[in-house]
């Protein structure tokens, strides 16, 4: 054990602060009335944060993605290995799509210079703030939604929760968080120059979100 640690803890332990007297009130953030209300809030909040949101049924997901890729003239797409929407992504991407299946050290140059858009599959979403939840891992690399200039994220409508507190209370979170759990609520932005909002500071300039309504 380090000396510094012992000394710091010893100093802190000399004090015996009393626990706060007032009982803590429960935290009560936004609760949606029903699924449509949640979906509406989720979409409107994300749009307010400058993301482009489309909704579609699962059977037209591939077509929707294709139209999106064509509309934005995206030629080199990158996605993770596997996920609930992988079939539709492959169908839409065709030869333009490659898979993130090399370690960062070998893949850095390609990732930073060659890829137009990363396609991610969200694990969940939060209606309150218009937030996508990315549970990163081998099939969902975290840099997919960060490095390419365009980020496309697909999420199931049924995965929309009311608020952040509900996410944190999920047993999966408490028992085994991933390497990196990410909340994404819009394209990368900054107001560091004279309080003027600008998009694409370091991450994606554009965020497209596809909500799959029937799953």
């Amino acid at each position: 054990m380090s000396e510094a640690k012992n000394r710091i803890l010893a100093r802190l332990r000399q004090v015996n602060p009393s626990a706060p007297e007032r009982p803590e009130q429960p935290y009560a953030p936004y609760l949606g009335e029903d699924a449509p209300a949640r979906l509406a809030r989720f979409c409107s909040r994300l749009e307010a944060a400058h993301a482009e949101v489309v909704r579609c049924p699962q059977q037209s997901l591939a077509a929707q993605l294709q139209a999106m890729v064509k509309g934005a003239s995206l030629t080199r797409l990158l996605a993770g290995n596997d996920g609930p929407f992988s079939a539709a992504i492959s169908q839409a991407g065709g030869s333009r799509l490659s898979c993130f299946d090399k370690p960062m050290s070998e893949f850095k140059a390609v990732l930073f210079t060659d890829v137009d858009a990363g396609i991610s599959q969200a694990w969940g979403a939060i209606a309150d703030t218009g937030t996508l939840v990315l549970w990163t891992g081998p099939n969902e690399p975290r840099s997919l939604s960060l490095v390419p200039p365009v980020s496309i994220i697909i999420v199931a409508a049924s995965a929309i929760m009311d608020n952040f507190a509900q996410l944190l209370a999920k047993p999966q979170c408490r028992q085994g968080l991933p390497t990196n759990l990410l909340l994404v609520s819009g394209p990368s932005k900054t107001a560091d120059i004279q309080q003027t909002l600008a998009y694409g500071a370091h991450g994606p300039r554009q965020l497209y979100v596809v909500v799959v309504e029937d799953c």
Partner: protein
Amino acid sequence: MAEHSPRRFTPQAQEALASPVIRQNFRGAMDYLRKARSNAFSDPVEADAVLAKAEAVRRRCLSQLPALLETLEQRCTANGIQVHWAETPAEANAIIRALCQREDAKLVAKGKSMVSEEIGLNKHLAGLGIDCRETDMGEFIVQLDGDRPSHIIMPAIHKNKDEISATFEQHLPDFEATRDVDQLIAAGRQALREKFQAAEVGLTGVNFAVAETGTLCLVENEGNGRMCSTIPRVHIAVTGIEKVVEQLSDIAPLYSALTRSATGQAITTYFNMVSSPRRPGEWDGPEEVHLVLLDNGRSQAFADDELRQTLQCIRCGACMNHCPVYGRIGGHAYGTVYPGPIGKIISPHLLGLDDAGELPTASSLCGACGEVCPVGIPIPALLQRLRVEAKHGASAGHPPLKGQGAKANRLEALAMKGFAWLARHPRCYRAGTWLARRLAPFYPRRLGAWGQCRVTPKPAPKPLSQLLKEQRRV
């Protein structure tokens, strides 16, 4: 650029007040940030509830601080995050230096971290030939200028776009002057993308460290924090020991209180929860994650029931944005890493009451900072407490603060003692006021520093006690 110091607060403040550019830049920024905050808390009932919860969480977590730190270390270690402890800035720098040298690092990509400013990391690493590059847009601009951040959330708040364009022209190749903010940001993005790829080490701060799960949370809008904690092989997070919270559920109210108080956002673009280095089968993320826990005077604040509240701070900057002093003189005049009201109550613990100079008295005690603090830190009361500690020795049972009694003045103490005696002896007091009225014509016209902004007082023709007596007779 001359180094600012809290010991030269007055001349630095005067200089800032005399600069129309600084005055204008801060006025604009303060108006913007205040309006944004007030819109974000438009429902007073909801606002009270979330802020009361945030305060309660911070108080509870601080009341268990040593136990939570130990749990945090255990959980982080079990997750594969290596934990280091530093009592002083020098120790923290030594830990980070050793990690960088072991990586043979030439370039460190750094996300925004006030603790790294506190320890003077950039300068320390530069001395060893390691380029520690700021990647937050505001910090990047400030670093290019060889300047310092003037706000904890918006580091380049003191500069306007023309000044930033001039900075880029001077330092970035092929940059053409522009007033277009999108173009300015694009230039910064381009310059920094190269750095993210080349850096061997990424360094960030921590907004909340969750003891329950051993998770480090980072709040940001730009994505540079994610870059620094994702792309380089090694990620080092550095934070003060007070940032630990007990459980995952604690971060929801704190995060909401933080973003709304800081910039009026309901949420930031990214919330990044790091719980371990890259696991087998994963393609990206750092192969090593280190957490450096820094004390640097925090345990001194912790030792006192009242001063402990200083550590509730979640670094939102709302106190600065609402401070009539900060809004006029800006952040540099304070000469400390943490400027504004919160800086005035933190710095004495970091630097000592002696080196903190006039900071505890550089306040009108208007109370705005305490009112807007999302975690209920009574900043004005703590300022008054620090003023007392700076003037007197430690009271019985209290260990002396660093620089205790630094501002004690024997003449002043004697005068106060004399006045206390006089005030308790009515006859002498009356004789004194009688004499003061008789001597009025001989008062000096200038009363030194005190009289700079004040008119020399004139004693009333009749004392208050006499006026009251006369009124009773009527």
